[in-house]
Protein backbone atom coordinates (compact mmCIF):
# COMPACT_ATOMS: atom_id res chain seq x y z
CA UNK A 1 0.00 0.00 0.00
CA UNK A 2 1.34 3.29 -1.07
CA UNK A 3 0.58 5.18 2.09
CA UNK A 4 2.48 2.69 4.19
CA UNK A 5 5.40 2.90 1.83
CA UNK A 6 5.34 6.59 2.18
CA UNK A 7 5.12 6.29 5.94
CA UNK A 8 8.05 3.92 6.08
CA UNK A 9 10.12 6.29 4.09
CA UNK A 10 8.99 9.34 5.90
CA UNK A 11 11.41 11.17 8.10
CA UNK A 12 11.06 13.92 10.56
CA UNK A 13 11.88 16.90 8.52
CA UNK A 14 12.65 20.47 9.27
CA UNK A 15 9.95 22.94 8.42
CA UNK A 16 11.13 26.28 7.32
CA UNK A 17 9.10 28.89 9.05
CA UNK A 18 8.52 32.24 7.42
CA UNK A 19 7.93 33.75 10.82
CA UNK A 20 10.68 36.13 11.79
CA UNK A 21 13.33 34.91 14.14
CA UNK A 22 11.80 31.49 14.69
CA UNK A 23 13.31 28.08 14.17
CA UNK A 24 16.80 26.73 13.90
CA UNK A 25 17.33 27.60 10.25
CA UNK A 26 17.08 31.37 10.33
CA UNK A 27 20.07 33.33 9.21
CA UNK A 28 20.32 34.71 12.74
CA UNK A 29 20.54 31.25 14.27
CA UNK A 30 23.08 30.13 11.70
CA UNK A 31 25.15 33.22 12.25
CA UNK A 32 25.18 32.63 15.99
CA UNK A 33 26.34 29.07 15.46
CA UNK A 34 28.90 30.32 12.98
CA UNK A 35 30.23 32.60 15.72
CA UNK A 36 30.83 29.46 17.78
CA UNK A 37 33.06 28.16 15.03
CA UNK A 38 30.60 25.64 13.61
CA UNK A 39 31.63 24.99 10.02
CA UNK A 40 28.38 23.29 9.07
CA UNK A 41 26.33 26.26 10.25
CA UNK A 42 28.51 28.51 8.15
CA UNK A 43 28.04 26.25 5.14
CA UNK A 44 24.27 26.46 5.61
CA UNK A 45 24.54 30.21 5.97
CA UNK A 46 26.53 30.27 2.75
CA UNK A 47 23.73 28.41 1.01
CA UNK A 48 21.20 30.93 2.26
CA UNK A 49 23.09 34.07 1.58
CA UNK A 50 25.61 33.53 -1.21
CA UNK A 51 23.10 34.34 -3.94
CA UNK A 52 22.31 37.59 -2.24
CA UNK A 53 25.95 38.48 -1.67
CA UNK A 54 27.17 37.50 -5.12
CA UNK A 55 24.21 39.08 -6.89
CA UNK A 56 24.70 42.41 -5.17
CA UNK A 57 28.45 42.39 -5.84
CA UNK A 58 27.75 41.56 -9.48
CA UNK A 59 25.27 44.37 -9.86
CA UNK A 60 27.70 46.88 -8.44
CA UNK A 61 31.06 45.83 -9.86
CA UNK A 62 29.49 44.49 -13.06
CA UNK A 63 32.32 42.13 -13.83
CA UNK A 64 31.62 38.47 -12.93
CA UNK A 65 35.24 37.62 -12.10
CA UNK A 66 35.62 40.63 -9.82
CA UNK A 67 32.21 40.04 -8.30
CA UNK A 68 33.30 36.55 -7.40
CA UNK A 69 36.45 37.86 -5.73
CA UNK A 70 34.55 40.44 -3.75
CA UNK A 71 31.85 37.95 -2.77
CA UNK A 72 34.53 35.62 -1.46
CA UNK A 73 36.05 38.42 0.64
CA UNK A 74 32.61 39.26 1.98
CA UNK A 75 31.68 35.72 2.90
CA UNK A 76 35.00 35.09 4.60
CA UNK A 77 34.52 38.35 6.49
CA UNK A 78 31.12 37.09 7.62
CA UNK A 79 32.84 34.04 9.06
CA UNK A 80 35.62 36.07 10.61
CA UNK A 81 33.41 38.67 12.25
CA UNK A 82 30.32 36.58 13.03
CA UNK A 83 31.31 36.92 16.68
CA UNK A 84 30.42 40.60 16.40
CA UNK A 85 26.93 40.23 15.05
CA UNK A 86 24.28 41.40 17.48
CA UNK A 87 20.73 40.67 16.46
CA UNK A 88 19.39 43.41 18.69
CA UNK A 89 20.86 45.81 16.19
CA UNK A 90 19.31 44.37 13.06
CA UNK A 91 18.76 41.27 10.98
CA UNK A 92 21.47 38.92 9.83
CA UNK A 93 20.45 39.47 6.23
CA UNK A 94 20.94 43.21 6.57
CA UNK A 95 24.23 42.74 8.40
CA UNK A 96 25.62 40.53 5.65
CA UNK A 97 24.18 42.67 2.88
CA UNK A 98 25.77 45.73 4.43
CA UNK A 99 29.19 44.11 4.39
CA UNK A 100 28.68 43.05 0.78
CA UNK A 101 27.58 46.49 -0.35
CA UNK A 102 30.43 48.22 1.40
CA UNK A 103 33.04 45.89 -0.06
CA UNK A 104 31.62 46.12 -3.56
CA UNK A 105 31.50 49.89 -3.39
CA UNK A 106 35.06 49.98 -2.11
CA UNK A 107 36.11 47.89 -5.07
CA UNK A 108 34.37 50.15 -7.56
CA UNK A 109 35.76 53.31 -6.02
CA UNK A 110 39.30 52.04 -5.83
CA UNK A 111 39.02 50.97 -9.45
CA UNK A 112 37.86 54.48 -10.30
CA UNK A 113 40.69 55.98 -8.32
CA UNK A 114 43.14 53.79 -10.17
CA UNK A 115 41.80 55.12 -13.44
CA UNK A 116 40.52 51.68 -14.31
CA UNK A 117 37.58 53.02 -16.25
CA UNK A 118 38.26 51.07 -19.37
CA UNK A 119 37.63 47.71 -17.86
CA UNK A 120 34.58 48.98 -16.07
CA UNK A 121 33.15 50.44 -19.26
CA UNK A 122 33.75 47.16 -21.05
CA UNK A 123 32.12 45.23 -18.25
CA UNK A 124 29.20 47.60 -18.23
CA UNK A 125 28.44 47.08 -21.90
CA UNK A 126 28.41 43.32 -21.38
CA UNK A 127 25.79 43.19 -18.69
CA UNK A 128 25.20 39.59 -17.66
CA UNK A 129 21.73 38.13 -17.72
CA UNK A 130 21.38 37.88 -14.01
CA UNK A 131 18.07 39.66 -13.94
CA UNK A 132 16.26 36.65 -15.33
CA UNK A 133 18.04 34.40 -12.88
CA UNK A 134 16.91 36.63 -10.06
CA UNK A 135 13.29 36.04 -11.00
CA UNK A 136 12.97 33.19 -8.60
CA UNK A 137 10.58 31.86 -6.05
CA UNK A 138 10.68 34.15 -3.07
CA UNK A 139 13.11 36.28 -4.99
CA UNK A 140 10.23 37.29 -7.15
CA UNK A 141 8.11 38.06 -4.15
CA UNK A 142 10.74 40.34 -2.67
CA UNK A 143 11.43 41.76 -6.04
CA UNK A 144 7.87 42.87 -6.53
CA UNK A 145 7.58 44.36 -3.11
CA UNK A 146 10.73 46.40 -3.49
CA UNK A 147 9.79 47.50 -6.96
CA UNK A 148 6.31 48.45 -5.85
CA UNK A 149 7.73 50.51 -3.03
CA UNK A 150 10.34 52.15 -5.25
CA UNK A 151 7.43 53.32 -7.40
CA UNK A 152 6.01 55.26 -4.48
CA UNK A 153 9.07 57.53 -4.50
CA UNK A 154 9.32 60.66 -6.57
CA UNK A 155 11.42 60.34 -9.70
CA UNK A 156 14.31 62.22 -8.13
CA UNK A 157 14.16 60.20 -4.91
CA UNK A 158 14.09 56.95 -6.83
CA UNK A 159 16.92 57.86 -9.18
CA UNK A 160 19.07 59.17 -6.36
CA UNK A 161 18.58 56.07 -4.20
CA UNK A 162 19.10 53.56 -7.00
CA UNK A 163 22.10 55.33 -8.52
CA UNK A 164 23.72 55.45 -5.11
CA UNK A 165 22.91 51.89 -4.13
CA UNK A 166 23.22 49.90 -7.35
CA UNK A 167 25.66 52.26 -9.03
CA UNK A 168 27.93 52.61 -6.01
CA UNK A 169 28.04 56.37 -6.47
CA UNK A 170 28.41 58.96 -3.72
CA UNK A 171 25.61 61.45 -3.32
CA UNK A 172 27.85 64.11 -4.85
CA UNK A 173 28.40 61.94 -7.91
CA UNK A 174 24.68 61.29 -8.05
CA UNK A 175 24.05 65.03 -8.00
CA UNK A 176 26.31 65.56 -10.95
CA UNK A 177 24.84 62.58 -12.83
CA UNK A 178 21.36 64.01 -12.32
CA UNK A 179 22.45 67.59 -12.78
CA UNK A 180 20.83 68.46 -9.47
CA UNK A 181 21.99 70.45 -6.46
CA UNK A 182 24.07 68.48 -3.97
CA UNK A 183 22.01 69.40 -0.85
CA UNK A 184 18.83 68.54 -2.71
CA UNK A 185 20.12 65.09 -3.60
CA UNK A 186 21.27 64.53 -0.06
CA UNK A 187 17.80 65.35 1.25
CA UNK A 188 15.96 63.36 -1.42
CA UNK A 189 18.06 60.31 -0.59
CA UNK A 190 17.11 60.54 3.04
CA UNK A 191 13.42 61.19 2.58
CA UNK A 192 13.30 58.61 -0.20
CA UNK A 193 14.72 55.98 2.13
CA UNK A 194 12.30 56.94 4.87
CA UNK A 195 9.40 56.54 2.46
CA UNK A 196 10.78 53.22 1.33
CA UNK A 197 11.13 52.10 4.93
CA UNK A 198 7.52 52.95 5.66
CA UNK A 199 6.29 51.29 2.48
CA UNK A 200 8.14 48.05 3.13
CA UNK A 201 6.78 48.03 6.63
CA UNK A 202 3.20 48.64 5.55
CA UNK A 203 3.18 45.94 2.96
CA UNK A 204 4.50 43.28 5.28
Amino acid sequence: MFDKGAEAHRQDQPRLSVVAGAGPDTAEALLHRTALGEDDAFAALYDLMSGRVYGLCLRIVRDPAQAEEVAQEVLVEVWRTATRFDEHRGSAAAWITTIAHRRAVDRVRSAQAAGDRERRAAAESAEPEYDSVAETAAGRLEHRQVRRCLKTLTELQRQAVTLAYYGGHTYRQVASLLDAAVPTVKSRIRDGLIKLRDCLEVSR
Partner: protein
Amino acid sequence: MSEDVHTLVGAWALDAVDADERARVERHLDACASCAQEAAELRETVARLADVTVAEPPARLRENVLAQVRRTRQEAPAARPGEAPAPGPVADLRRGPHRSRRSPRLRLALGAAALAVAAAFAGVFATWAVMQQPAGEGERIAAVLEAADAEVSYQEAEGGGRVTVITSEALDQGVVVVADLAAPGPDRSYQVWLVEEAGQVSAGVMDPGDSSATMLVEGLGDTLLVGVTNEPAGGSAEPTLPMVADVALPA
Protein backbone atom coordinates in the same frame (compact mmCIF):
# COMPACT_ATOMS: atom_id res chain seq x y z
CA MET B 1 26.21 71.38 11.66
CA SER B 2 24.29 68.63 13.38
CA GLU B 3 21.36 69.36 11.06
CA ASP B 4 23.73 68.56 8.25
CA VAL B 5 24.79 65.30 9.84
CA HIS B 6 21.17 64.28 10.31
CA THR B 7 20.42 64.54 6.62
CA LEU B 8 23.61 62.66 5.82
CA VAL B 9 22.33 59.54 7.56
CA GLY B 10 20.43 58.52 4.41
CA ALA B 11 23.47 58.80 2.18
CA TRP B 12 25.53 57.07 4.86
CA ALA B 13 23.12 54.12 4.89
CA LEU B 14 23.65 53.78 1.14
CA ASP B 15 27.47 53.96 1.48
CA ALA B 16 27.15 57.08 -0.66
CA VAL B 17 29.43 59.24 1.46
CA ASP B 18 33.18 59.79 1.41
CA ALA B 19 35.47 58.65 4.19
CA ASP B 20 35.38 61.94 6.12
CA GLU B 21 31.63 62.14 6.04
CA ARG B 22 31.34 58.54 7.09
CA ALA B 23 33.51 59.19 10.13
CA ARG B 24 31.48 62.26 10.97
CA VAL B 25 28.16 60.43 10.73
CA GLU B 26 29.41 57.52 12.78
CA ARG B 27 30.70 59.78 15.52
CA HIS B 28 27.30 61.37 15.61
CA LEU B 29 25.52 58.03 15.82
CA ASP B 30 27.46 57.28 18.97
CA ALA B 31 26.08 60.38 20.59
CA CYS B 32 22.57 60.67 19.18
CA ALA B 33 20.06 57.97 19.98
CA SER B 34 17.42 59.11 17.52
CA CYS B 35 19.86 59.15 14.62
CA ALA B 36 21.24 55.77 15.67
CA GLN B 37 17.71 54.39 15.58
CA GLU B 38 17.07 55.90 12.19
CA ALA B 39 20.41 54.65 10.92
CA ALA B 40 19.62 51.10 11.97
CA GLU B 41 16.24 51.25 10.30
CA LEU B 42 17.59 52.74 7.10
CA ARG B 43 20.32 50.11 6.93
CA GLU B 44 17.64 47.48 7.23
CA THR B 45 15.60 49.20 4.51
CA VAL B 46 18.57 49.59 2.23
CA ALA B 47 19.44 45.91 2.57
CA ARG B 48 16.07 45.12 1.05
CA LEU B 49 17.26 46.78 -2.17
CA ALA B 50 19.45 43.72 -2.60
CA ASP B 51 16.32 41.57 -2.85
CA VAL B 52 16.18 42.30 -6.55
CA THR B 53 19.77 41.47 -7.40
CA VAL B 54 20.02 37.89 -6.18
CA ALA B 55 22.05 35.80 -8.61
CA GLU B 56 23.54 32.35 -8.36
CA PRO B 57 27.30 32.42 -7.89
CA PRO B 58 29.59 30.02 -9.72
CA ALA B 59 29.70 26.64 -7.96
CA ARG B 60 33.43 26.94 -7.27
CA LEU B 61 32.83 29.95 -5.02
CA ARG B 62 31.38 27.66 -2.36
CA GLU B 63 34.46 25.45 -2.32
CA ASN B 64 36.78 28.43 -2.33
CA VAL B 65 35.00 30.17 0.52
CA LEU B 66 34.72 27.07 2.67
CA ALA B 67 38.39 26.26 2.07
CA GLN B 68 39.48 29.76 3.03
CA VAL B 69 37.26 29.70 6.09
CA ARG B 70 38.94 26.51 7.29
CA ARG B 71 42.19 28.42 7.54
CA THR B 72 40.76 31.70 8.83
CA ARG B 73 40.69 32.52 12.49
CA GLN B 74 37.58 34.22 13.85
CA GLU B 75 37.75 37.53 15.64
CA ALA B 76 37.18 37.94 19.32
CA PRO B 77 33.63 38.92 20.29
CA ALA B 78 32.54 42.55 20.07
CA ALA B 79 34.41 45.10 22.10
CA ARG B 80 32.89 45.96 25.45
CA PRO B 81 32.34 49.60 26.34
CA GLY B 82 35.67 51.29 26.84
CA GLU B 83 37.50 49.11 24.39
CA ALA B 84 38.28 50.36 20.94
CA PRO B 85 35.41 49.50 18.62
CA ALA B 86 36.07 47.49 15.51
CA PRO B 87 36.29 49.50 12.31
CA GLY B 88 33.72 49.25 9.55
CA PRO B 89 30.13 50.25 9.01
CA VAL B 90 28.65 47.17 10.56
CA ALA B 91 30.49 47.42 13.80
CA ASP B 92 29.64 51.07 13.86
CA LEU B 93 25.99 50.35 13.40
CA ARG B 94 26.05 48.29 16.53
CA ARG B 95 27.63 50.96 18.61
CA GLY B 96 24.43 52.94 18.92
CA PRO B 97 22.59 52.88 22.22
CA HIS B 98 21.51 49.40 23.05
CA ARG B 99 17.90 48.61 22.35
CA SER B 100 16.51 45.75 24.29
CA ARG B 101 13.85 44.85 21.75
CA ARG B 102 14.07 44.79 18.02
CA SER B 103 11.70 47.40 16.64
CA PRO B 104 8.64 46.22 14.74
CA ARG B 105 10.22 47.55 11.59
CA LEU B 106 13.26 45.35 11.95
CA ARG B 107 11.08 42.41 12.76
CA LEU B 108 9.13 42.96 9.58
CA ALA B 109 12.23 43.14 7.50
CA LEU B 110 13.32 39.89 9.05
CA GLY B 111 10.13 38.23 7.90
CA ALA B 112 11.04 39.11 4.37
CA ALA B 113 14.54 37.87 4.88
CA ALA B 114 13.17 34.59 6.09
CA LEU B 115 11.25 34.24 2.87
CA ALA B 116 14.39 34.87 0.89
CA VAL B 117 15.90 32.17 3.00
CA ALA B 118 13.10 29.86 1.97
CA ALA B 119 13.92 30.51 -1.65
CA ALA B 120 17.56 29.80 -1.04
CA PHE B 121 16.64 26.51 0.57
CA ALA B 122 14.61 25.64 -2.46
CA GLY B 123 17.83 25.84 -4.45
CA VAL B 124 15.95 27.47 -7.24
CA PHE B 125 18.15 30.35 -8.12
CA ALA B 126 19.59 28.71 -11.19
CA THR B 127 16.77 26.51 -12.21
CA TRP B 128 13.60 28.41 -11.90
CA ALA B 129 12.73 31.44 -13.90
CA VAL B 130 9.11 32.32 -13.42
CA MET B 131 9.31 34.02 -16.79
CA GLN B 132 9.66 30.62 -18.40
CA GLN B 133 6.37 29.35 -17.09
CA PRO B 134 3.41 28.99 -19.45
CA ALA B 135 1.40 32.17 -19.93
CA GLY B 136 -0.47 33.11 -16.79
CA GLU B 137 1.10 30.44 -14.64
CA GLY B 138 3.93 32.70 -13.56
CA GLU B 139 1.37 35.10 -12.16
CA ARG B 140 -0.49 32.35 -10.37
CA ILE B 141 2.74 31.00 -8.92
CA ALA B 142 3.62 34.49 -7.76
CA ALA B 143 0.19 34.73 -6.10
CA VAL B 144 0.94 31.62 -4.02
CA LEU B 145 4.34 32.98 -3.03
CA GLU B 146 2.81 36.30 -2.07
CA ALA B 147 -0.07 34.81 -0.13
CA ALA B 148 -0.13 36.05 3.44
CA ASP B 149 -0.48 32.48 4.70
CA ALA B 150 2.24 30.96 2.49
CA GLU B 151 4.15 28.20 4.25
CA VAL B 152 7.32 26.50 3.12
CA SER B 153 8.16 22.83 3.56
CA TYR B 154 11.05 20.99 2.05
CA GLN B 155 13.00 17.79 2.10
CA GLU B 156 16.36 16.65 0.87
CA ALA B 157 15.77 14.00 -1.78
CA GLU B 158 17.29 10.54 -1.87
CA GLY B 159 20.38 10.76 -4.04
CA GLY B 160 20.70 14.54 -3.74
CA GLY B 161 18.72 17.65 -4.53
CA ARG B 162 15.74 19.05 -2.74
CA VAL B 163 12.00 19.25 -3.08
CA THR B 164 10.36 22.40 -1.73
CA VAL B 165 6.64 22.99 -1.47
CA ILE B 166 5.14 26.40 -0.85
CA THR B 167 1.47 26.19 0.06
CA SER B 168 -1.34 28.63 0.65
CA GLU B 169 -4.31 27.19 2.42
CA ALA B 170 -6.38 30.26 1.59
CA LEU B 171 -5.75 29.85 -2.13
CA ASP B 172 -5.87 26.05 -1.90
CA GLN B 173 -2.81 26.05 -4.12
CA GLY B 174 0.80 25.11 -3.84
CA VAL B 175 4.02 25.49 -5.76
CA VAL B 176 6.33 22.48 -5.99
CA VAL B 177 9.97 23.17 -6.72
CA VAL B 178 12.03 20.14 -7.63
CA ALA B 179 15.67 21.10 -7.70
CA ASP B 180 18.78 19.25 -8.74
CA LEU B 181 17.71 15.67 -8.17
CA ALA B 182 20.01 12.90 -9.35
CA ALA B 183 19.63 12.20 -13.08
CA PRO B 184 16.57 9.91 -13.35
CA GLY B 185 18.30 7.55 -15.78
CA PRO B 186 17.72 6.85 -19.47
CA ASP B 187 14.05 6.99 -20.48
CA ARG B 188 12.97 7.82 -16.95
CA SER B 189 10.95 10.73 -15.61
CA TYR B 190 10.35 12.10 -12.17
CA GLN B 191 6.68 12.25 -11.27
CA VAL B 192 5.06 14.36 -8.56
CA TRP B 193 2.19 13.01 -6.47
CA LEU B 194 -0.30 14.48 -4.05
CA VAL B 195 -0.79 11.99 -1.26
CA GLU B 196 -3.79 12.04 1.06
CA GLU B 197 -5.42 9.53 3.39
CA ALA B 198 -7.47 7.98 0.61
CA GLY B 199 -4.54 7.51 -1.74
CA GLN B 200 -2.67 9.62 -4.23
CA VAL B 201 -3.07 11.42 -7.51
CA SER B 202 -0.44 12.44 -10.00
CA ALA B 203 0.28 16.16 -9.94
CA GLY B 204 2.44 16.00 -13.02
CA VAL B 205 5.26 14.26 -14.81
CA MET B 206 8.54 15.97 -15.48
CA ASP B 207 10.16 15.81 -18.90
CA PRO B 208 12.27 12.66 -19.34
CA GLY B 209 15.78 13.17 -18.03
CA ASP B 210 14.97 16.43 -16.23
CA SER B 211 16.03 16.73 -12.61
CA SER B 212 14.60 20.18 -11.86
CA ALA B 213 11.13 21.60 -12.40
CA THR B 214 8.58 23.94 -10.90
CA MET B 215 4.88 23.36 -10.99
CA LEU B 216 1.73 24.97 -9.73
CA VAL B 217 -0.66 22.63 -7.94
CA GLU B 218 -4.29 23.68 -7.78
CA GLY B 219 -6.75 22.10 -5.40
CA LEU B 220 -4.55 20.85 -2.59
CA GLY B 221 -7.58 19.61 -0.67
CA ASP B 222 -6.49 17.26 2.10
CA THR B 223 -3.04 16.59 0.73
CA LEU B 224 -0.73 15.34 3.46
CA LEU B 225 2.41 14.81 1.47
CA VAL B 226 3.88 15.80 -1.83
CA GLY B 227 5.82 12.82 -3.13
CA VAL B 228 8.28 12.42 -5.98
CA THR B 229 8.98 9.09 -7.66
CA ASN B 230 11.23 7.88 -10.45
CA GLU B 231 9.08 6.41 -13.23
CA PRO B 232 9.39 5.24 -16.82
CA ALA B 233 9.47 8.23 -19.19
CA GLY B 234 6.03 9.80 -19.33
CA GLY B 235 5.00 8.67 -15.88
CA SER B 236 2.94 5.87 -14.35
CA ALA B 237 -0.61 5.44 -13.13
CA GLU B 238 0.65 4.24 -9.76
CA PRO B 239 3.78 5.43 -8.00
CA THR B 240 6.88 3.23 -8.02
CA LEU B 241 8.23 3.00 -4.50
CA PRO B 242 10.30 4.00 -2.68
CA MET B 243 9.72 7.65 -3.17
CA VAL B 244 12.66 9.90 -3.86
CA ALA B 245 11.15 12.51 -1.58
CA ASP B 246 7.96 12.90 0.43
CA VAL B 247 7.45 16.37 1.74
CA ALA B 248 4.95 16.61 4.58
CA LEU B 249 2.73 19.65 4.28
CA PRO B 250 1.78 21.83 7.23
CA ALA B 251 -1.03 20.25 9.21
